[in-house]
């Protein structure tokens, strides 16, 4: 047993604190908005220029002028504000966003993050990820612990071009939760049905404590 995509998103939602402004990345992080705990109010930032991102529209209500950073049609809320891209990244770089939850291709024990390209194979681009990891208060990464071939993606050192150096605070995978601490990673918890031995075996990074 291990966590599926929705369970990972639900676990990541436990990181949210009342009153925070938060940026959710593309993929599993987007699902986090489905699991915001009762009594916790957060304002979601979409870096293309919006605070107060609402849910997907009802069929027929899609507006081409209203999308999120993943280019998906969304809706506004009573507290929504729109602004331009320079203003959007001013608030990101300026440390006004409490937390970003992002996907990753690789993460390393010193908090290095790689999630924007595979040289010669896959060129997507960093989008706003480099600005987010450099500017926000706390960076939480949500990712599969291993590749399709079973190789650990939680590494001593990243092999892919970095998105940011020593920027990740917490890693949530299908196998559990780890924190970046001096000397390596510390196990915070294991996913349902995953033993600490399983987690250690799937992790190349140094585990301390």
């Amino acid at each position, binding site marked *: 047993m291990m966590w599926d995509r929705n369970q990972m998103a639900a676990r990541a939602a436990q990181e949210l604190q009342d009153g925070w402004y938060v940026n959710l990345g593309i993929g599993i992080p987007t699902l986090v908005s489905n699991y915001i705990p009762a009594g916790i109010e957060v304002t979601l930032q*979409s*870096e*293309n*220029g*919006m605070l107060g991102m609402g*849910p*997907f*529209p*009802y*069929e027929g*209500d*899609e*507006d*081409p*002028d*209203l*999308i*999120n950073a*993943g*280019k*998906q*049609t*969304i809706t*506004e809320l009573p507290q929504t504000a*729109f*602004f*331009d*891209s*320079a203003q*959007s*990244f*001013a608030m*990101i*770089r300026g440390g006004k966003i409490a937390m970003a939850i992002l996907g990753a291709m690789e993460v390393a024990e010193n908090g290095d993050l790689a999630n924007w390209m595979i040289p*010669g194979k896959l*060129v*997507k*681009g*960093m*989008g*706003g*990820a*480099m*600005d987010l990891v*450099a*500017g926000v208060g706390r960076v939480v990464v949500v990712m599969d612990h291993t590749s399709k071939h079973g190789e650990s993606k939680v590494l001593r050192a990243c092999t892919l*071009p*970095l*998105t*940011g*150096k*020593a920027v990740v605070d917490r890693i949530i995978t299908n196998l559990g939760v780890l924190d970046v601490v001096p000397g390596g990673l510390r196990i915070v918890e294991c996913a349902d049905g995953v033993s600490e031995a399983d987690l250690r075996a799937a992790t190349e990074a140094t585990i301390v404590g």
Partner: protein
Amino acid sequence: MRVVGVLMKKVYGSAADALDGLLFDGMLIASGGFGLCGIPELLIAAIRDAGTKNLTVASNNAGVDGFGLGVLLETRQVKKMISSYVGENAEFMRQYLSGELELEFNPQGTLAERMRAGGAGIPGFYTKTGVGTVIADGKDVKTFDGQDYILERGLVADLSIVKAWKADPSGNLVFRKTARNFNPPAATCGKVCVVEVEEIVPLGALDPDTIHLPGIYVHRIIQGDHEKRIEQRTVRKRETA
């Protein structure tokens, strides 16, 4: 009366008319838009028809295959892109990986700030975005209060192409929802800025307190019909009672 006459000179009849005399091979164009949202689709089509070559285009994305700036990639009019994200465009990736197209990756916020700074007369600025990554290669690093920052350059384009919702004849602009995105910073960084809008309203029809970009940045305006294609149509089911 004379003032009104001057203002009215900004309004052109078509995208081709509005670009007349502004295009030249090898030029740098800054474009607004994010994905397919708020893109200057009429001006892009007119640049395609004009056949201007060896373009460098600064734009967050490059559209998709067959729409947005993807159109100018297919006609091989673009020599180089300055972008943060190209993930949705297969032709872009193919041309880049085969070496046909140059690509300068800029982090999204760095690209937006390069445009803003360029338009604001700021030739360079320090940012912590990209420190310790390939983005920092060859750039000046300076330490402020114990933290490293890299020097990024303000960007000044030969031409800005922008999409807004409404304009008045003086060039005052109002954008709509997330279609604002890169359009204001892109507009400010051009030596000349051409804007396409859905509606040109009479002078005085826009509340001066709600203007998003003042007309000083805008040189030519056209009105036209926009396709406004949706890239990812995501919906939820209506709850039935």
